[in-house]
């Protein structure tokens, strides 16, 4: 280490920044940050995994932007070009597609682990709300990105998916036209979705992500009831810097490698170009994260009492999602003194519901 004035390079760089931005306090604060070490610690990694995958999405997305052309005439061809002609284009594209799915999966796992550990409770309600918004935004990313290759399956999946907005009362039809850029799914839809996918959604996502992370940093890691009740001698902690960080790095390395393996052994297909006038092919379905809703809607009868089955389904989902969203609110009303079983039972029901209907959706193809 080079020395001058008796200080190392590291110390001098730190000093330069500290003089200007007074970061000593921040550093001290960060040193104190720790993660509870217990059986459930493993779930604490999933937020970081989701963040990693998001960063990978942004980077691979920017690379794809170098070659992708978002018009009806050129979208499919440009994706084909990337997959076949550009050096490592196949890798970038498959990583982007796989990482999208893994990110949403990671966010779901993260959300459910937070739910079951009840980390959404005071003082972390806003963290939960921003987190849920991030989930919704990432599903928006998934839906808009899916259309961009402009292939047959994506075209019809988008058609079916956007059709559902019709069921929303009052603003449904207007919303449909807003989404589609017209009455039907056309090149205008592609333009809009491209705009959503690379400008609108990233902007919103970044805002809520920053808030989410800020809240976590300020408040520290959540400490679940079970762990808090342990005697002090048995309460173990992992310092966030550098221990937990290094552990996260380890897991991140493995995740990145998994992505590479998936890209090489299970490359993402392109299919055939979308044709607006062709008949719908057999087996159109949305991506797996929409599948459970899609399957429920398919199974509902055409009419329930005086309402259309589809409307009932969408209304039901709307209400359910809203209730889930405001869980910090109604959780307060349930007795905290003993282990709160209601939340857990509701949570188990929701998880099973999603898993069962997702599987059904794929089997009953």
């Amino acid at each position, binding site marked *: 280490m080079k020395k001058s004035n008796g200080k190392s390079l590291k110390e001098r760089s730190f000093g330069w920044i500290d003089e200007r931005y007074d970061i000593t306090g921040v550093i001290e604060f960060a040193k104190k940050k720790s993660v509870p070490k217990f059986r459930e610690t493993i779930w604490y990694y999933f937020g970081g995994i989701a963040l990693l995958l998001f960063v990978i999405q942004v980077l691979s997305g920017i690379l794809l932007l170098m070659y992708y052309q978002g018009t009806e005439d050129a979208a499919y061809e440009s994706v084909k070009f990337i997959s076949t002609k550009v050096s490592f284009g196949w890798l970038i594209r498959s990583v982007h597609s796989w990482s999208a799915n893994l990110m949403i999966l990671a966010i779901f796992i993260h959300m459910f682990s937070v739910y079951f550990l009840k980390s959404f409770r005071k003082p972390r309600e806003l963290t939960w709300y921003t987190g849920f918004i991030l989930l919704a935004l990432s599903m928006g990313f998934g839906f808009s990105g899916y259309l961009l290759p402009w292939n047959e399956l994506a075209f019809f999946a988008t058609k079916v998916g956007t059709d559902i907005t019709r069921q929303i009362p009052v603003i449904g039809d207007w919303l449909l036209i807003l989404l589609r850029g017209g009455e039907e799914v056309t090149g205008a839809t592609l333009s809009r979705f491209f705009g959503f996918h690379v400008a609108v959604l990233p902007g919103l996502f970044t805002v809520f992500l920053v808030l989410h992370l800020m809240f976590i940093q300020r408040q520290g890691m959540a400490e679940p009831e079970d762990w808090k009740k342990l005697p002090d001698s048995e309460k173990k902690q992992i310092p966030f810097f550098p221990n937990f960080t*290094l552990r996260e790095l380890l897991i991140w*390395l493995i995740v990145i490698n998994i992505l*590479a393996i998936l890209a090489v052994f299970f490359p993402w297909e392109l299919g055939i170009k979308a044709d607006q006038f062709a008949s719908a092919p057999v087996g159109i379905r949305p991506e797996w994260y929409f599948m459970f809703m899609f399957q429920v809607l398919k199974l509902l009868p055409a009419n329930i009492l005086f309402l259309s089955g589809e409307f009932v389904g969408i209304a039901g989902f709307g209400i359910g999602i809203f209730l889930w969203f405001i869980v910090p609110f109604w959780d307060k009303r349930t007795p905290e003194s003993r282990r709160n079983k209601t939340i857990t039972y509701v949570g188990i029901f929701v998880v099973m519901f999603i898993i069962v209907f997702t599987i059904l959706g794929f089997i009953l193809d």
Partner: protein
Amino acid sequence: MLKILYKIVLFFLVAAFSSLVFAQSNTDECLSCHQELDDELLLPAKNYVNDIHYKKNITCAGCHGGDATTDDDEIAMSEEKGFIGVPDRTVRYKVCINCHSDEQEMKRYGSNLQVDQYKKLENSVHFQPSINNQGPIADCVTCHSVHNIKSVDDPQSKVYPTKVVELCGSCHSSANFMKNYNSSLPVDQVIKYKTSKHGMLNAQGDPNVAECVSCHGSHDIYSVNDSRSHVYATNIPEVCANCHSDSKLMSNYGLPSDQYESYVNSVHGMALLEKEDISAPSCNDCHGNHGAVPPGVESISKVCGSCHVLNMELFEKSPHQKAFDENDFPECETCHGNHQIRYVTDNMVGTQESAVCMDCHSNEKDDKGYLVAGEMKLLIDSLKHEDKETKEILSDATQKGMDISDAEFLLKDVRQVLIQTRTSIHTFNLDKFKESINPGFEMISKVKQEGISAVDDYYFRRLGLGISTIIVTFLVIGLYFKIRKMENKT
């Protein structure tokens, strides 16, 4: 006294006998009466004694109705007796078919003639209404005439083989007449026919050679483009074969009789008869139809060349043109045959036993053709081999999930080159041949490269993955130890 008795008995006998005779011949009172006339009504009666119906004892009333037994013209030609006078042109055929479509009636007169003439005629082109609405264009009378009808086997009959050409030509050679019905129909058939072998022999009185009826039919004549016609494209080979496969008949003229059999098994025959491709040639496309004559030795390539244009053009500029003419070899026929033209295979060219080149060329010192043939075969085989190898590589790449659609597109061009190269064999010139096949080699090597690099890319991906996985594994293990060490310290 006995002498007088003798004379009286004789007189009565003669009278009786004569009256009997006169009774018979006097049964046709119409005829005897009309024969006494001196206006236009005389002619039919004069002609009728030569008519076959007269010889069969059919009276005028047999066709015209009325009563032929009485010489009272008012009774004989009365409506009550069924007299119809001269039937109108629109319906006169009905008179003929009264008997001629009735098998029983024909047997009554001891005739074995067929009774389907009208059935055949009524849908034919000749039975369409004529332009001035005067009944059908042609009916029985038009060809067989009337009042002097002869048996078809009678050389005097208008429809006897040696006379029918003139009969058909009386309408079909008249441009003025034919243009009322179809101005695009040619009117030179008779002229052409007279230049043909059939025509020349027919003019010499041979009733056994083909004339109009032999090919077109007699009563069931349809337009050439009507699939019911005897001379519709797919029907022609059989029609010609009717005579030309009859070895006994053909031996009279010193002609072979195996052409039909050869043709049916040839490329052209199978295309026409099995695939029903009417653009394929049949007998008349090479031999001509009315002016049928086998093409001369030096004109064969022009005949074949009327469809196979490029081959003809190349052949005519090739060294074979002069060589074949000098040796009196029929041009295309020498290598490809005339009737039994088979599918061409690449084995036809080269120096192996099955090659047609070897029919003339041999491995002798001055035989340049031998070398050229060998070289051509070598090049074609080599291109085909490359093509096959490349296709295997591409299929391997596809199996591995790599995209080679551009390469596959280029392959189509190679196929095109192969097709064109086989045509350029007809230049019989190695340099020109190489000009057409060399681009194929360039293309195929490009495609092969793309295929190979696609497969290579597949392996490269796995290799790259392997390397990075190894690096990551090292890192992970190293990190793990670092973490453990760090935690053990505290």
